[in-house]
């Protein structure tokens, strides 16, 4: 009897010890690798696209694995602009890029262009994405207080939103300073804050990341949408803490109109990079590529330079 009890006790102890943690097979729908196609169409700059394959997360093995299954000789990447005169084939560029193939063509995006990007490689589902190149924003600087002994620099920008469709903007004020290393002046991001209504739409990750980097909630650049100001002429005041411009100082404000896809991709990517906590909610990276992953997006920029 004692022997039986000992054996039973041993078996139970083994069960308890062995049952706490174990490797498991992936039980979900195993997703096959797909093509990842990403391209940012900037008005006035040659169009380029990056192509790679995704990897099942349990098979990830180095940066080269993203391109090793892509047969360049049989793969097709093509762009169609405004549905005119058929697609234009893109060619694999000689520049070496780790983790992706770079494709290019002679096409230079213009505001208003509707771009369709398609790719097809043996062993992968064909992918397709579509975007429209936005028009540059119309804005002006209506007032500028350079700041003083007890005053921070303040700037008011008036943005004319035509209200024709939902728009997303990217704002990046920069201070232009002589560079100690090059003849070209250096452009340095400049921290700012604002109570304006448009900045309530800023995705949290952007705040978080700059908050983390600079220890406060100031911004250095940010995205916002026009949902609350659509079709209006909207003035927004920016305050630049600690910035005081003197005679001859230069300052620039770049405002871009960006596609919704770029807005979502970029903000989600920023959140992903700021995700330092294992208890935090997972971050979903935006994609508008059907049949695969990646993002096709576009932007058009306008810039105002100020010199005191």
């Amino acid at each position, binding site marked *: 009897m004692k022997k039986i009890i000992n054996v039973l006790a041993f078996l139970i102890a083994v069960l308890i010890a062995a*049952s*706490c943690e*174990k*490797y498991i097979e992936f039980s979900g729908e195993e*997703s096959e690798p797909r093509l990842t196609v990403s391209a940012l169409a900037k008005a006035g700059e040659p169009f380029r696209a990056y192509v*790679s394959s995704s990897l099942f997360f349990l098979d990830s093995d180095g940066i080269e694995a993203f391109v090793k299954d892509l047969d360049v000789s049989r793969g097709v990447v093509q762009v169609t602009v405004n549905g005119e005169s058929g697609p234009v084939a893109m060619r694999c560029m000689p520049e070496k*890029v780790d983790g992706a193939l770079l494709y290019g063509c002679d096409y230079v995006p213009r505001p208003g262009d509707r771009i369709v990007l398609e790719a097809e490689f043996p062993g992968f589902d064909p992918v397709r994405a579509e975007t429209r190149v936005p028009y540059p924003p119309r804005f002006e600087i209506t007032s500028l207080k350079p700041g003083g002994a007890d005053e921070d620099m303040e700037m008011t920008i008036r943005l004319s939103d035509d209200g024709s469709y939902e728009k997303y903007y990217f704002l990046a004020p920069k201070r232009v300073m002589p560079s100690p290393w090059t003849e070209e002046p250096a452009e340095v991001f400049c921290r700012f804050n604002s109570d304006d209504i448009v900045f309530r739409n800023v995705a949290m990750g952007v705040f978080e990341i700059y908050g983390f980097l600079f220890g406060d909630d100031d911004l250095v*650049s940010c995205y916002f949408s026009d949902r609350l100001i659509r079709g209006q002429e909207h003035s927004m005041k920016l305050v630049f803490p600690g910035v005081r411009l003197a005679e001859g100082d230069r300052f620039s404000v770049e405002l871009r109109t960006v596609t919704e896809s770029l807005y979502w991709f970029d903000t989600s990517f920023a959140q992903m990079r700021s995700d330092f906590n294992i208890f*935090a*909610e997972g971050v979903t990276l935006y994609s508008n590529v059907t049949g695969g992953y990646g993002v096709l997006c576009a932007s058009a920029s306008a810039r105002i330079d100020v010199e005191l």
Partner: protein
Amino acid sequence: MKGRLKDIGIAALTAAILFLAPAVASAQRVTVSGYMTDASSGESLISAALLEQLSGKGTVTNNYGFYTLTLNKGEVSLEYSYTGFEPFRTGFSLERDTVINIALKPAPEMLSGASVTASRSETGVRGTQMSTVEIPVRQILRVPALAGEVDVIKAIQLLPGVQSGTEGSAGLYVRGGGPDENLLLLDGVPIYNVNHMMGFFSVFNADAIKNVTLYKGSFPARFGSRLSSIVDVRMKDGNDQEFHGSASVGLLSAKFNLEGPIVKGRTTFNVSARRTYYDILAQPVFMYINRDSQDRGMGGYYFYDINAKLTHRFSNRDKLYVSYYMGDDQVYARVKMNAEREKDNMKLGWYWGNIVGSVRWNHLFGSRLFVNTTLNYTQYRHKLDADVKHYELQNDPASAFSLGYNSLINDISASSDFEFNPSPRHDVRFGATFIRHTFKPSVNTVHYEDRTGGMEMVQDTTFGDRNLYTAEGAAYVEDNWTAFEWLKINGGLRISLYSTGKSNYFSLEPRLGLRLLFSEHFSMKASYSEMSQSVHMLSNSNISMPTDLWVPSTDRIRPMRARQAAAGLFYELGPVDFSLEGYWKGMDNLLEYRDGATFLGSSSGWEDKVASGRGWAYGIEFLVQKKSGRFTGWVGYTWSRTMRLFDREGNVINFGRPFPAKYDRRHDLSIVASYEFSKKFDLSATFVYGTGLCGSLALQTISVPPGYNFDAGSFTNPYPVDYLESRNNYRLPSYQRLDIGFNFHREFRSGRHRTINLSVYNVYNRNNPFLVYRVGSSLKQLSIFPIMPSLSYTFYF
């Protein structure tokens, strides 16, 4: 002129008849009222039935065992019944308002299945109440339990429409709702944190409990302030004739219960307490670890709770109840490091718990108006202390550092609830409640002093969120109207007003339930209800943590709202009840964490870290339940779907696309069975199966090329990224478990008896997922409860 006078006369006569008819009719009606109690203990019986057999009219007792039934004058034949008790029948000529207090005798023959009287409870075939389950406490006591610790919440998790969170958790997810959407009432007082030991056990000590009712839809207007469920737990009043008690020792905890009369038949008390003793059992381990060292380290975890209740009957018209609950969890560690010329002392403490108290007064005006007036206090507090002292040459502390974190919520409330029985066809309830909430989301205190190097520096700092004060008021009216014998309607309206900061939120919540009786044993019910909720719990994980933060609705965060429609079929076959229900629930202003957000380590600025959106849930629930006889138990099955959509401006999650809720579970099956072989031995078993819960898992890795990340377009190196397609895209492996329990009873000649319980949790040692995570290129699953045998001994006296 004569004709005109004649017309006036006829009109006056008609008016007089119209006015006087109800009065005449009223004069023909009289009321039978009183209390129904258990003859063996004097405990009031909740939801016990009274049926007037000649007219077919009936009623059930309320939470205080009180009933009132208005009938026409004349011969009556009354049957008082309660499942598991001998029915009592009486017939007489009812001529005036009559008070009949009935003490029903427990019926041992019913336990052997000899006869069963079907309950006329409002949750049964004949009542209007649907989506509601009453669980007999003796059934709960038989359900095999984790570590032998019988748990009310764990038993509720086995009902259809109710899902559990992760393995072992005491969280309730009812019809697509979150764990904070359940109003858990202990003797009518809300409890904010019902969990001990990170949610593996609940605060409800089964020894102190008399009755448990779960409402998961078709909410009567008297309930409000939560979206998804009401769990109404009632404590025992105490035996009014003699002293009784029990003492129990198990592997995890020890507990006792004592009840009895202070003044026989008038004043009773009931006290229960329990404490775990893992910390005490762990001491020899620490002593062994410290045996060869100058340093000393020890720590532990325990929880305790105390339930107490005092009941005093002033007269048949007035009763006073005083209830009290206090429970705490404590984690502590103490380390002493001794060097030759200096030493360090470190103390860490982590405490959380509830204090709940209530004073209730029942009064009967006449024979038709019953009033319950309550004053409540409930508090949940969470505290973290760290204290480090450094000594040199055995002097006063050379340096000391202490850190404290406090979080607290408390409510003071007052309410009056009226029950009025104006006619045989109407049961009217109305009342009002007022709650004052105080939230202290987090306050940190830091103390630092340094007396080294001949200098002295002392710093005290306190910082954190400011206190938030909010107020909530509500008034309601409901009528349970028997329109025809085959049609019964429960209509009600609840009006609530919530005031916070500069905002006032007004909410109109209609409630409607109706029952169509096709035969004595078959009915169909339908219901519609709207609910609102002004408090939210912020939690990052599927398990209950003491750091879960209760926060109020604010100027920016609106109260949550839900609308629920349900319909079902109900059938009785002897002692077996069948129900099949379908429901649809729409929810608004739900809170979810934004991508990347976490509350770990910081509770400030919480409004920026959550988004507000919508949700919907629908499903079908099937329940077959047998409450009496040798064989008891139930089979419950739920098919359901729960989705979320956060697509509003500034509140977008998952790019505005719908995604499943974390606790979306397609299939959920529970089988609970108990068989009494003899008076000396009974056996019970539980089997559960559930589709795996949802989680977010990046299934692909992609290469994000350089070019357009947030830093204004500058190119960087390619960036491999784990690609998460959508929130909650991955389903954990399914959950299943079989538990069995054996109870060996023995009765001594003195009338005392004892029960030895042997339970085996997770009999076939299924590795159920608690957490799934990635290790390199593999997936690992953590399971926390393997096969767990347990033993407990309970002595009843």
